[in-house]
């Protein structure tokens, strides 16, 4: 077990985060077309305990199911990158294990996006370094952007490639100046579970986006606005359009999926729930009488489309059941009780600990001012998921400099930058980025690659915070290897001045979600 327990200042226990995440070696790998049955409920071990998957539709016979069958030319299925053991995402540990098991020949490593760039030599780990080191897939998008009807969007900024360690953005066939100009950015796959919450249109959805008053995307089947909370850049409006797009790109399918296939994928995704169910420190997270918001069954029961940032419907309801627990003199029981108390304190840090939220577009620019004295739950306010309520993209500094994680530049530095760096210069007739000005350096322009807007540069849709223990590394660019690094990143970004105890408690809390 890669998770050690350490005693810190009195009774507070900390889950020592695994170096490279969890659910890797030893975790079951679901191969496309295996034909196994996905049970109604299952537990998948990870270094923190076990993740629960609940399928409210009952067991799924995966033979012939479009989520599980290879549908394109490269042998992948949806399940290739949305593995149950990785909370329907994909941990980098699982990627590495699969590389070792197949010597890099699994369809997971397809050149189209499982390689840093398709022109690189196959089966060479260096060609797949971003997938192997950070769990990143190449996302290639047309430049300039295209609207839903295919028309060209005139961007508000000029885009230059400053650094191109993968060679893809300057490549004559795949790059920005190729015959078919593309921008390549590198992103983590998101969870294909709890999607009833992710796609809910019951809160904050209107014809115009609350972030910047531009028109909302609509469901092409109903013409009704959608919440635009899917994918890192919200470029697909519905589960069906996302599946269709993914089949064409990630699966390299030439023809369109049938209506029956799209319907089956959507139905499956909306009945699947995932969350950590047990924990090496806290024991069962889903036992009767425990916190009502933990565990996969709680996800299946919860109400979607609820703003959780209030004391009537918490983001993650944990109540006070673990706030103060007895000491029995039995080391294992006392250690568990101490850890559970730490989880409750970590919840309180997440929910109540104020700090200055400053210079973050699409939170400080929506009408509440810059800065804003609030808490983690202000941006992560979606009940049960910790996503933003709707239209949830923000620039929290994960990809934009100066906050994005970059290796030090010096003659003595060991690490080399792995990600591309772009320079975006807002045109004179456009309003500059509110907090970074007219020139922004970024590893991934995020939503701006879809809209061409300066205020969207580096804005990334907030991910759900469930199943974190099963799917390291974190952030859209995989820049943070452990949950502790996530906590430390935010402490640095927003000058939160967290104490060591607060950091430990918050890390422990995150590991139970």
């Amino acid at each position, binding site marked *: 077990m890669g998770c050690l327990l350490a005693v810190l200042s009195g009774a507070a226990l900390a889950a020592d985060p695994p170096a490279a995440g969890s659910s890797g070696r030893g975790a079951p790998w679901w191969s496309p077309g295996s034909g196994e049955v996905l049970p109604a409920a299952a537990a998948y071990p990870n270094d923190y305990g076990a993740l629960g998957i609940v399928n409210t539709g009952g067991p799924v016979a995966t033979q012939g199911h479009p989520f599980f069958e290879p549908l394109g030319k490269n042998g992948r299925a949806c399940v290739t990158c949305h593995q149950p053991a990785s909370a329907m995402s994909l941990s980098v540990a699982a990627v590495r294990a699969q590389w070792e098991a197949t010597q890099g020949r699994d369809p997971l490593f397809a050149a189209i996006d499982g390689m840093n760039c398709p022109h690189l030599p196959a089966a060479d780990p260096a060609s797949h370094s971003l997938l192997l080191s950070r769990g990143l897939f190449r996302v290639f998008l047309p430049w300039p952007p295209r609207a839903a009807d295919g028309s060209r969007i005139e961007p508000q900024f000029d885009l230059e490639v400053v650094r191109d360690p993968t060679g893809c953005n300057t490549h004559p066939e795949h790059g920005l100046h190729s015959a078919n100009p593309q921008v390549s950015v590198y992103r983590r796959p998101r969870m294909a579970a709890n999607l009833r919450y992710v796609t809910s249109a019951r809160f904050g959805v209107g014809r115009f986006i609350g972030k910047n008053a531009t028109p909302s995307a609509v469901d092409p089947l109903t013409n009704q606005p959608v919440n635009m909370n899917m994918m890192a850049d919200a470029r697909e409006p519905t589960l069906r359009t996302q599946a269709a797009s993914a089949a064409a790109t990630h699966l390299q399918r030439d023809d369109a999926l049938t209506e029956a296939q799209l319907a089956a994928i959507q139905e499956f995704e909306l009945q699947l729930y995932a969350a950590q169910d047990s924990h090496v420190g806290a024991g069962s997270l889903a036992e009767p009488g425990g916190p009502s918001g933990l565990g996969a069954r709680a996800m299946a029961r919860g109400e979607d489309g609820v703003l959780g940032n209030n004391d009537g419907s918490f983001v993650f309801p944990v109540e006070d059941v673990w706030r103060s627990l007895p000491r029995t003199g039995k080391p294992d029981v006392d250690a568990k009780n101490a850890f559970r108390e730490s989880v409750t304190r970590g919840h309180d840090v997440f929910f109540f600990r104020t700090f200055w939220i400053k210079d973050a577009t699409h939170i400080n620019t929506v009408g509440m001012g810059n800065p804003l004295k609030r*808490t983690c739950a202000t941006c992560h306010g979606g009940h049960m998921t910790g996503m933003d309520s709707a239209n949830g993209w923000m620039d929290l500094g994960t990809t934009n400099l100066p906050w994005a994680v970059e290796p030090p530049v010096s003659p003595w530095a060991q690490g080399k930058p792995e990600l591309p760096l772009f320079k975006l210069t807002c045109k004179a007739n456009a309003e500059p980025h509110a907090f970074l000005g007219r020139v922004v350096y970024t590893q991934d322009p995020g939503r701006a690659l879809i809209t061409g807007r300066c205020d969207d540069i580096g804005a990334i849709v907030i991910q759900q915070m469930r199943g974190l223990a099963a799917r390291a590394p974190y952030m859209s660019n995989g820049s943070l290897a452990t949950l502790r690094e996530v906590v430390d990143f935010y402490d640095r970004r927003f000058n939160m001045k967290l104490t060591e105890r607060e950091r430990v408690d918050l890390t422990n809390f995150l590991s139970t979600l």
Partner: protein
Amino acid sequence: MPKTVIRAIALSLVATTALAEGTGKTLSFKACPIVRDTSTVPCWLAEHEGELYYLGIQTDLQGTFTPPYLGHQALVEGEVTGRRLCGGIVLEPVRASTLPELDSNCNAILPAEDRYQIDFNPRPPGPSVGRYQRPAGQRQRRAPLEVTARQEFQVQFEFDGRVKARNAGDLNRIFNYAQTAKASRISIVGRQGGALLSNGQRMDERPELAKIRAEEVAGLLRQAGLEVREWSVSWNPPAVPDGKEDWADRRVTVVVEQ
């Protein structure tokens, strides 16, 4: 009576007199906004000619005051009252326009002091409580729209500003009303107006902003799928600022007719 007490009373009388003298006066000035922390929510201040003015507190999106941004100068336009809050003379009503370009000098966050207390805020700095607290399962129901033959909407802008996040609500209201009313005609008139500052200087909005605003509002409604038989999009020449409610000219008027 101790001398210190007499001095304090005298000073407070002077301050009260000074406040009373300025009451009702409209101020318009450009300044760095200042944030003062309190034991609850922070408040927003700005300094003008050696005096500190109170603009408002951090609230929620439902709040009527839209706070400015640190990192930018703001154009403050408001009416002097006889009250002090957070150490500043209250301007009410007040509008603060965030000016687009960055200004790194505008970065002051003052610490909380016991003497400055905000006890009327409906929205604490953490999670909502009280009247903003709403348990899961209880959803607010919207009152049905009342449709009339002609309905006028105002879309207000900050100085030199175009459509921003705060206008999403305006556009949603116009769109929903026009759809419900099965509107046959929409008239959109853009306006712009500068600011005559209290020091006599004049600030002008960028050229053709009235046109840009009108076309932007019309374009967004069309892009969102609003289908109306007749569209009229026009704009007025820039209004001449006089230092009194100059902000009111920075708007687009939308008239929806059945």
